């Protein structure tokens, strides 16, 4: 049996790709990914049209996709996250069918439940053997975990592995086993290492971000959850990562032995593992070289699939045992609904990723955000887009005070007792507006450009086009 084929084109042909089918990609190569563009270029060249692309995330490097949309090669997009470069065009209304946003847990659930079946999955693999046992831990394009690729590999009708490091059979330390793989293609480069992972993830130097991070660590300390067995996830951006640093200091000082760190993993979480703050890291995606090195060498640093990470259909997922998650927001409203899909002008620039999954699972879901950004208050009456429902958010930490979801009375009392400056979220909104002024409301267009689908399959919100001024 020979699975190795000579070219992507040959694999597409053998997989039987036809007009109207669905193809899928994972985003572990992030903004360094060449594979989606290579595959799409071949498909366009072969004259195949009307495809649905289900990509776990889309980055600016995938801008050529916009041409395939204009040329009707691609007529529908499903994704969990879309960076601003792609999102801006989508917000201009270039597609006839609205994009469907899902969460990192909702996507695999819908794939597994047959709601969004995949005809051909293209799996970029930093290392694969000739039968398709593959991993992200080795090779010049190493990305660490391949967590988001598992549901695609396990459920697509045909699966093509594309690698730039083809090794002899068997690759022992594989992530995805050969049992799911139909074809293997060797190419020169699957990605640009500089865009795949950062050299090091640095915490913010912004003093306001650090002040919020310190407050967030204090909230965690006062929540009653910070004790032996503590589990934790944090975003990789700005103040959330800085909060992890302050949390680490508290855990070491008070000799607290946590159970696991979860999520997209950075070097900071690796440090916490190595310094005894956690027993294990459960890693669905690596953000920097230190995380890649750690998942390769440390048995306590374990790869998990997207389903295991956050799947709402799984019998249990790691988010379900999570104590605390630290998350960001572009906006939050007085009902604690959070927007991470659109920017202040209504353009798409993100997506839930694991935001709504972890918020739903964690005992304490915290948002860290400055009271205003570029003069725009963070707290609004109603967010432009609901990415995560307010009922799953417990706390908002800003630099001028902390708001607790009224549903969580016990937490509020704990924070008040710890002299944390607890304020009503309406008061935070008023404080922000007293500094910034009251912004005029955005005008929305009347064309639906995206739908945000919650992890339980219900429609959370609809995003409309941004009208040209």
């Amino acid at each position, binding site marked *: 049996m020979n699975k190795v084929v000579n070219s992507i084109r040959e694999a597409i042909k053998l997989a039987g790709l036809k007009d109207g089918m669905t193809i899928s990609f994972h985003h572990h190569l992030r903004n360094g990914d060449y594979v989606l563009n290579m595959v799409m270029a071949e498909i366009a060249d072969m004259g195949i049209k009307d495809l649905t692309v289900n990509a776990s995330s889309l980055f600016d490097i995938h801008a050529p996709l916009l041409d395939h949309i204009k040329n009707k090669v691609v007529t529908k997009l499903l994704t969990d996250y879309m960076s601003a470069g792609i999102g801006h065009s989508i917000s201009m209304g270039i597609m006839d069918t609205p994009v469907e946003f899902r969460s990192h847990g909702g996507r695999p659930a819908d794939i597994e439940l047959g709601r969004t079946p995949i005809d051909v999955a293209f799996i970029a693999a930093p290392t694969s053997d000739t039968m398709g046992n593959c991993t992200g831990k080795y090779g010049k394009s190493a990305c660490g975990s391949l967590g988001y690729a598992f549901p695609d590999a396990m459920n697509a009708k045909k699966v093509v592995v594309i690698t730039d490091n083809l090794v002899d059979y068997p690759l022992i330390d594989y992530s995805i086993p050969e049992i799911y793989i139909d074809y293997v293609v060797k190419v020169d480069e699957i990605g640009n290492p500089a865009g795949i992972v950062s050299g090091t993830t640095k915490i913010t130097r912004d*003093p*306001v971000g*650090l*002040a919020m991070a*310190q407050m967030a660590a204090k909230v965690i300390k006062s929540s009653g959850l910070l004790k032996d067995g503590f589990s934790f996830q944090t975003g990789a951006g700005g103040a959330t990562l800085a909060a992890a640093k302050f949390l680490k200091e508290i855990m070491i000082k008070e000799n607290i032995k946590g159970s696991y760190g979860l999520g997209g993993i950075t070097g900071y979480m690796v440090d916490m593992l190595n310094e005894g703050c956690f027993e294990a890291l459960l890693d669905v995606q690596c953000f920097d070289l230190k995380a890649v090195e750690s998942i390769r060498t440390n048995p306590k640093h374990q790869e998990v699939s997207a389903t295991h990470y956050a799947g709402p259909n799984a019998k249990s997922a790691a988010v379900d045992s999570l104590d605390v998650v630290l998350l960001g927001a572009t906006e939050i409203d007085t009902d604690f609904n959070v927007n991470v899909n659109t920017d202040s002008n209504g353009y798409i620039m993100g997506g839930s990723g694991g935001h709504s999954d972890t918020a739903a699972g964690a005992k304490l879901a915290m948002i860290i955000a400055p009271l205003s950004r570029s003069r725009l208050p963070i707290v609004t009456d109603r967010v432009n887009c609901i990415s995560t429902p307010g009922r799953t958010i417990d706390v908002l930490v800003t*630099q*001028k005070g902390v708001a607790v979801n009224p549903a969580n009375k016990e937490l509020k009392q704990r924070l008040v*007792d*710890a*002299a*944390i400056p607890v304020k009503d979220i309406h008061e935070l909104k008023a404080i922000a507006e*007293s*500094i910034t002024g009251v912004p005029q409301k955005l005008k929305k267009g009347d064309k639906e450009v995206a739908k945000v689908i919650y992890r339980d399959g219900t429609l959370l919100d609809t995003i409309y086009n941004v009208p040209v001024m």
Partner: protein
Amino acid sequence: MRRSMLFLPGNNPNMIINGDVLGSDSVILDLEDAVSPAEKDAARILVRNTLKYLKFENCEIIVRINSIDTEYWKDDLDEIVPLKPDLIMPTKVSCADDIRTIDAYMSEIEKKHGMENNTVHLIPLIETAMGVENAFEIAKSTDRVVAMFLGGEDLTADLHCKRTKVGNEISYARSRMVSAARAAGIDVYDTPFTDVNDDEGIRVDCELAKSLGFTGKASISPRHVSVINEVFSPSHKDVDYAYEVFEAIKTAKELGKGAIALHGKMIDKPIVERARQVISMYEEIVRRNGGLD
């Protein structure tokens, strides 16, 4: 309560508007060295407007003005004093007359704007050899002076020596300043530690300053604020002792005793005064942060 004083450049809106969330007891909005000559006017108007339109919560405002040998200091005071900052920090103060000149001009401005005399206080920056030698006279010069602040960088230039991390070159100035300030009954603040990335160094430098008798310390980086606050806060032991002092006084009163002893030591007036300060500081820390770290 003023343990930490954080410098913020006076012409940088992004830094100033968030000045009250950085944990510092005071912020020093700087019109002097942080502002180039071409931007003095812009910084002055910006600082004046932020004081006029923004609220700074739990944070004292100090404005550092240009020295009286420049063309800027009067304009600085004209714009800033009517907005009633807590303190003005005059720079390169070398003798009591410098302060009297500034005091007289401030009184004029206060009168002109219908403000009570001495509304705005002074914390002179002592950063010349002459200033150090005249520290006591400066401290006693007018009622406006409520604290003094030692500037080690300019001082070492004046002393013809190199500023070092250990700071042997300013040890005389430090002690002299503390002595002068305490003799005059005012607070005294130590020079900033300038290596922003040396987390151990800032702690050592704070502890040294505290051991010499300084009330607190200035900082050029928000990163140093929490260490300064920590070192210059009373310890749990200090707080427990302060409460014990008042408990002992109460018990003695109930028993009708004149002399009061605690742990075999007589409680005299300075001990009571010190206990009072510790408790008032502790209560303020509890109000702001919930307790000592």
